[in-house]
Each structure stands twice: as structure tokens, then as C-alpha cells.
């Protein structure tokens, strides 16, 4: 790691000011990707502004069916939240599948979605739940937020402060883990609500997380695990690497979608 300066922000405003003061600075929201990248000397921010201790970014609040997760909420807190489990158990299950216990106690939902790793779990859930990403300056729908591999709608210095969504009637997540990293080789989150069915796919798309509208239509007409079998998943649209070919990922998208529906019940 190259030398860097660490700042612990205590308020959103303070963090934004610090970020503005340091052109080469970066927000630190758990650092489960950023710190590892810095240790490999592949990133060298001059300053790190730690967001994990800002009270306004903390915690889970649930108001009827409305869920709000502070951006600095660690995965472990999401995984064990009884209030959240009562309205959206699939998201608790997803959080419990991220990384290992160390990662789950350091990594945050805000950090995960702002990074938008194509193999991260949360982005699939955000898309499928039709979540809204709240930043220090605006509200962005998940559909507009996730743009491509490691790319989001966030502007320079813009900070995710929370995500919010209406709890679905049913939801489920199924993940096939990379045998080495245990990131999602393919993960599919399905959610059924009054507005319809949404299917978010992570780990597989050549352009990052995406919604599979074919599966959404199939599940809307018949909410059953086998409904997704006939969906068209084009290997041309899939990522490929030494761990998984495009054809294998295309297969996994269907299999994980089916299992996500089973998990949703």
C-alpha cells in the first residue's frame, strides 16, 4: 500500500467537505474492495474518508412495508435483523452469503452498491426490489443507478446515504459461488410485488448486473420455478473468464432463477 491519509468523518456534510478538499481522495465504506486493491498497489488514493462512523448512515428502519437501510449498515447487521427478516427475509439471506464473517462485519451496503462489482450480491437485490438509491443530493432508481462494470450514476464526490424499497410479497435469492473467491459466479434475485415481478441477475452479465425481462414476464404469467426454463439467456450477453464460460453462466442464470423462485416460495 502506498502512503495515504485516513479521515474518520462524523457527519455527511463533514465527509463531503473532506472529499471536496482532496481531489485524489476516496470514500471508504468498509473497504472490502478498496483496501485490498490498495494493498496490491493498484489504487493509491491520497486520502481515505471513512463513512462507517457517521450516525446518519447507520441502521435499518422499517415503517410498515417501507424499508430503509443506511448506507453504512454492515452486511452482518442486515443478515441478523429480525425486523427486516419479518418483511424481506431474502435480503437477510443474501447478506449472510456475502464473503466471510470478517467481510460481513466490515463491508457495507452503500460500499457494495457504489462499487458495483459485477459479481457483488446487493446490486441484483436492488434491481429486483426496485429500490431507490438515496444520495447526499438526490434519489436514483436502481434501474438508473447501475450502469456497467464498476460503473454507477454517481457523480464525482456524490455519496450514497441510504437505500429504500417497498417490501415485496415474495422474494428469493440464489447464488452460485465462484469456487475460489466465493463471489457470485451467478446470483439471481427474484421479487414479486403488487407492481409485478422483477428479476435481478449479478455475476453473469457482460455489462454487469441486469434485469431479465423475459423471466419477469414468464413469472408474472405463472409464478412457478419451472416458468424460467424457457427463458432466453443469450451467452453473447454473458461474462466469461477462466472460472466460467459464457455458456455455463447462461445455464447458471436459469438454474439460479429457478432456485430463487423456490427460495421465495
Amino acid at each position, binding site marked *: 500500500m502506498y*502512503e495515504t491519509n485516513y479521515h474518520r468523518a462524523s457527519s455527511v456534510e463533514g465527509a463531503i467537505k473532506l472529499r471536496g478538499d482532496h481531489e485524489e481522495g476516496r470514500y471508504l465504506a468498509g473497504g472490502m474492495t478498496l483496501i485490498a486493491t490498495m494493498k496490491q498497489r493498484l489504487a493509491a488514493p491520497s486520502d481515505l474518508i471513512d463513512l462507517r462512523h457517521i450516525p446518519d448512515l447507520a441502521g435499518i428502519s422499517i415503517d410498515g412495508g417501507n424499508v430503509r437501510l443506511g448506507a453504512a449498515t454492515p452486511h452482518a447487521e442486515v443478515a441478523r435483523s429480525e425486523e427486516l427478516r419479518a418483511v424481506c427475509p431474502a435480503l437477510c439471506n443474501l447478506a449472510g452469503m456475502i464473503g466471510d464473517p470478517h467481510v460481513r462485519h466490515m463491508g457495507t451496503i452503500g460500499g457494495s452498491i457504489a462499487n458495483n462489482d459485477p459479481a457483488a450480491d446487493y446490486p441484483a437485490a436492488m434491481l429486483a426490489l426496485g429500490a431507490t438509491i438515496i444520495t447526499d443530493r438526490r434519489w436514483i432508481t436502481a434501474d438508473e443507478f447501475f450502469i456497467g462494470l464498476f460503473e454507477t450514476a454517481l457523480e464525482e464526490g456524490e455519496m450514497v446515504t441510504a437505500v429504500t424499497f417497498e417490501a415485496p410479497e415474495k422474494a428469493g435469492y440464489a447464488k*452460485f459461488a465462484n*469456487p*475460489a*473467491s466465493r463471489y457470485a459466479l451467478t446470483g439471481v434475485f427474484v421479487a414479486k410485488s403488487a407492481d409485478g415481478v422483477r428479476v435481478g441477475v449479478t455475476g453473469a452479465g457482460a455489462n454487469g448486473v441486469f434485469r431479465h425481462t423475459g423471466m419477469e414476464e414468464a413469472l408474472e404469467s405463472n409464478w412457478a420455478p419451472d416458468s424460467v426454463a424457457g427463458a432466453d439467456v443469450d451467452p453473447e450477453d454473458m461474462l466469461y473468464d*477462466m472460472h*466460467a*464460460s459464457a455458456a455455463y453462466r447462461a*445455464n*447458471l442464470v436459469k438454474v439460479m432463477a429457478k432456485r430463487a423462485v423456490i427460495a421465495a416460495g
Partner: protein
Amino acid sequence: MGVEGIGARVTRKEDKRFLTGKGRYTDDMTVPGMKYACFVRSPYAHARITGIDPSAAREMSGVIDVLDGKQLQADGIGNLICGWMIHSKDGSPMKMGAWRPLAVDTVRYVGDAVAIVVADSYLEARDAAEAVAVDYDELPAVTEAIAAMADGAPQLHPEAPGNLIFDWELGDGAAADQAIASAAHVIEIEIHNNRLSPNPMEPRATLGIYDAAEDHYTCYTTSQNPHVARLVMSAFYNVAPENKLRVIAPDVGGGFGSKIYIYPEEIVCLWASKKTGVPVKWTSDRTEAFLTDAHGRDHVSTAKMAFDSEQRITALKVETVANLGAYMSLFSSAVPTYLYATLLSGQYAIPAIHANVRTVYTNTVPVDAYRGAGRPEATYLLERTIETAARELGVSPAELRRKNFIRSFPYQTPVIMNYDAGDYEASLTAAMEAADWAGFSARRADAESRGKKRGIGMSCYIEACGIAPSAAVGSLGAGVGLWESAEVRVNAVGTIEVLTGSHSHGQGHETTFAQLVAERLGVSIDSVNIVHGDTDKVQMGMGTYGSRSGAVGMSAVVKALDKVEAKAKKIAAHMMEADESDIVVENGELKVAGTDKTVPWFQVALAAYTAHNLPGGMEPGLKETAFYDPANFTFPAGCYIAEVEVDPETGKTDIVQFVAADDFGNIINPLIVEGQVHGGLAQGIGQALLEEVRYDPESGQLLTASYMDYAMPRADDLPSFKLSHQNTACPSNPLGIKGCGEAGAIGSPPALMNAITDAIGNNSLTMPATPMKVWQALQSAH
């Protein structure tokens, strides 16, 4: 067996230190004035060095010096060597290309060391290493052995045309050909043995200390065999004469073979300490470990197995190409030859065996011994072949093996080894019972009803351990003898120190060696200390690898204990005015047999050191030394059975049951043996399901350079193992020990691959059987 003697399940004495974080590893060593090193390494797989400019680095904060290969060469430091001579079948010696500790003209793999930076802190050294300007003229690279042998392939060393190191054979080719020509059935198979990274928990490290006043060097290092390190650094690398070089391997956190070898870093840090006048410490980071620790395996083979009409094996013919990487590491030549082809008879009576092995250079890190070293490659080839034969001949895999088992001992194989003892039927039967082999078809039907494909597979392995009779290995080309030494020092008040040339880096010697003393002398293991890993303390030794510490190292301790006991009896007889032949050792006392006359052990020791009243002419003291040279290899063997369920939708394999039935000879500590088997199984299962080193074939870049891409087995990848032992005592050493350190890694890969290929009905699957490969195999099986 006493409560702490041979056969007792004693918890490890060393674990308190390790589990409380009080182990003292090389990186924990700190000496006054110590500075830190970072190596400048090649980013290219193959390139000519056209210039090195250290001037910018030298100006940086904290930098003490930047040293390169030309300076090292000018100071007379020698090249790294391979210590086992192999001759090709045409009689020519193996083609050893120059491996300079710091590359001078050419770099040959990504990670090849080019220069060393010494600085006040590690981070300053690393920053400066990035600022050393090295000009490279990139050359084409080749990473795979078969490709390296092709016409027009990039050439690594002028000494080795066609990148061929040697073309060696063992056995009677004409006899094998004749048997194959007249066989009732011939099974042919292609076998790939995947390349692995050893991944010890503690990365390599070294601390070089030059004392100008004494013109003396001290080298702390992560070594499995510090005396061999000193020998090689003195005799071949011209670092310093042996009496001016002390090598200390303190606590070492795992080796699996990768810490047998002398690497460039030890040599360079010692030399750099003299050049800079400060002690120099280097600790590998995990990426460097992936890039520069010697890898294991990497064979491509074809095998032909011939059967007569009674399904008896009449011949085995094997062609193997082994990738040795960019340079010949210390024992690299022995692994695919005498540690491999000599085991191709397995547990079977095979009248004719012939193996042809070609080894080649590629632009990858050197390949050398890794847990099992040659024996896993032989076992995998043989056990996949015989399983395939059973399927093609339509006979049960157990039946085919039983028909061909060796059943009387000693048994001389056609490939050098003389098996001294074993009972292969016993392990096979025990394993099949433990696995409920008979109930498999019902379990398969149940799995099918759940949409899963269930398979079962076995492997009957044998290995040669207890390496090795010195004259025998000498005649085969080894540059060293493979005996072991021991010294037993009884202190004046009866406590005991055992100095051994073996080296513990996770095996639990501090406990098992003490158990041997407890058994012999009736003292508590707490009164026994094991000393190892320091060339200034221990007279000489060959270290720990090849499951040799029990069979060879403890046998040396037995010999020293024999001498101690004989002298103690003389003293006790003198003290009790009895006949020496009537003295027996019992419960920490020396006793006149058949009487109530006893003298405690500590009083005998005290008498030996006060020397007030010793038998006439006896020297004072109670300390004895022994060297033990084994009479033969030892032959651990066993039967492993894996049962798996494959999810046909994803290709994921779950190991639902794993049975290991082993014959390790006599066992000192069952708890430690079980731990060794568990660890070996984890590594073997890792090889079969998860692990593979991958290089980009064009650029030669290492693609699996971190745990993001190199899949190490985790606890939830492994089942709970069912272990049992069917021990036949080894007649070749005084304790009847065979060795247990490598068996798990040797026997498990073929058992698993036989089970998975049984489940999916496609025999062409290669290791590692990743979910994607299994899924692909299922698609093509349909």
C-alpha cells in the same frame, strides 16, 4: 504403552505456543540494525535484460543500497543447482541451464529476481524497488510442457535444445511391448496431473546477518532442512564455508515440500548483508508466494495397461512429459523419475513395466516436490487406469484390484522397489465395509429420485517413504545421503534433550519424539525437549520431507537411546552391585529384575555427571549420538473410497462420504496421524476439485496469483472423514513405522475422480473437477 508412550493419543506439546500466537517464526526475528529487503522482479515471462538503472531508487527515502546480479556474480556467488543427477536413456547427463540468484542477462518467468533493494523499512524498500528502472527486450514465452517441445517453441536455455532437460526411462520396454502385443485387452488413457501451488500458511522469509568481526554469517530461514541449506550454500553457492555459516529454521508454518529448496532470496540476503553491513530481512507476501514458491505436479501422460484373458495385468507402459519450469530446482529431477516411475507397480503384480519420462523447461516458476512428490502422479495414473479398465472389462473395480494384488512379501517390482510388508486386501475390505459399498446402488437410486447423480470410486495407493537408503539413492544420482542423525542428552538431574536432524514444520515432532523417549525410559514427555532446526546445535541432519521423520529420524533416536540405555544400565548395575544383564528400565527407574532394588533415573544421570563412583574406565556423562541409514524405503498403503453427488444443473460435486483405510505400520500418536491424514486429504481433495495454477499461454502471466482465482479448499468443501488403520509393522526399521504425512494427498485424487466420472458417465474429465468442467462433461455425455 504408557499414558504418554508409543500409541498414546497425546495432545501436542507445541500447540500451546502456536495457538496462543507465541510461535517464533523467521519474520518474528529482529536483530539490532536490521533493515528490510524488497526484490525487483521480472514482470515478463521471458525477456532479455538490456539495462538496470538503480539511480532514482538510490535517491529515495530510507534506501541503503540497490544490488544486482552482475555485482553478485562479480563477488563469486554461484548459480543455483539441482542436486540429483539424471541421465537420459542415451547416457547423456541432464541439461542444467544456469539459474542465477539474481538474473543477469535473461529473465525466464514472471517473478524471476533481478535486483534487491535494502532500505530502512519494508515500504521504503518496496517503493524504491518500483523505481529501479529495468529495460527489458521481451521474448516469446511458452508455459506448457507439450508446447515447449514443439518445433519453433521459444528456447529457454542454450544448454537444452528443444527445452528438453532429459529423456529418461525405467523398466523393460521390449517386455512391455511384447506383453501389450499379445494381450487379450489393452486399456489406453491420457492423464493430466494439474499444476498446484503449495500455499503454506507462513510465506517464505529469510534474515541474513553478516558479522564482520568474525567473518561469519547467520541465516534465519523458512526451511524444512537447515543443514542441507547450509551444505548447499557452502558447497555450491560460495556464500561461506560451513564453519562460517549458521542456518536456523525456527518455527516454520508449513512447507509441503516447498521449503526444502534453497531459493535465491536466502543467498542474496546473506550476500547483501555483507555488502551493506546491515542484517537484511525479506518476507514474501502472498502474491510473491504464488509467483516464486516452487509449484508441484504438472504432468501429461499416456498409459497403456495390458490384461490377459483372466483379467490379470500383464504390462504397463507409460509416457510422461513433466514441466519443470524455468530452472531446475534442488530436487526437481528426482520427482518425475525415481519418486514417480518406481511406484508404477502400485499394489499390483505387474510382470512388465516401462516408463519414459521427458522433462522440459517452460517460462514458469520451477516445479519441484509438493506433498507426495511423484507418488501422487503415479497413483493418479495407475488408479485412474485400472478403474477405467474395470469399466471397459465390465468387472467391479474391487474385483479387478483383488485379482491383481500383490499378496506375498517381500515383493520385488520391475521398477526398483522391493516392498517389505503390506496387506492390501485388509485395507480394501475395511474401506468397503466402512463405505457400505454394498448399499451404494440403493443410495444412488435415492439420489436419482432427488435429481442428483451419485457416484462411488476407490483408489488403492502405495507410496515409498522413509527416504532413503543412502547407497541406493546415491546409485540413482542423488547428491546427498538420506540418513538421519540424533543425539540424546541426559542432563545431570535426569531431564532429557533430543537433538534431531529432522525438522518439524507442523508435524508435531516435539510431541511424538518425546513420546518415544517416554516409552523407552518411562519418563514424562514434559521432561523431554526436542531440539531441531539450528546447525549450531544439531550436529547434522537431512531434514523433513517424504514422510521420513518417524521412519528415519526416530530410528536414529532409537539408536542413540540404545546407547544411553546401555550405559545407564552399566552405571545402575555398578550402583546396585548387580549384574548389568539383570537391569531393566521401568517407570523411570532402573531395577534389578526380580528384586525390589531400584535406582531412579535421575540418580543414574547424576552419578554419570558427578563421576564419583563410575565403573572402572567409564567416561563421565550420559549423552549419545547416532546416525541411522535406513535399510529400505517404507511402503505405506491403503484404500480410499469417495462417494459423491453431482448436481447435474450446476455441475457442483458434493463429497457425501470419504473413507480412508491406511496401513502406516506402527503408530506413535494416533491423534497426530489422524491430523496428518486430514490435512493430506484436504490437499488431495483440493487438487481433485478446486486447485490449479494457470498461466496465460501467450504472455506467461500467472492468472491464479491470489485467492480470488486460486481455489484453496475450505472447511465446507470437505466432508467429515471416516478413518481406519490396518497396520502391518514395517520390518525395515526398529519402530516398524512407515510414515503418514503424504498418504492423504496421494490416495485421494483418483478416488474422487473415479467417483465423479462414475457419477456422470464421462471418463474424460480432468482435474480439477470444477463445477463448470463437470457440467460441460455432462453436456457432452448426453
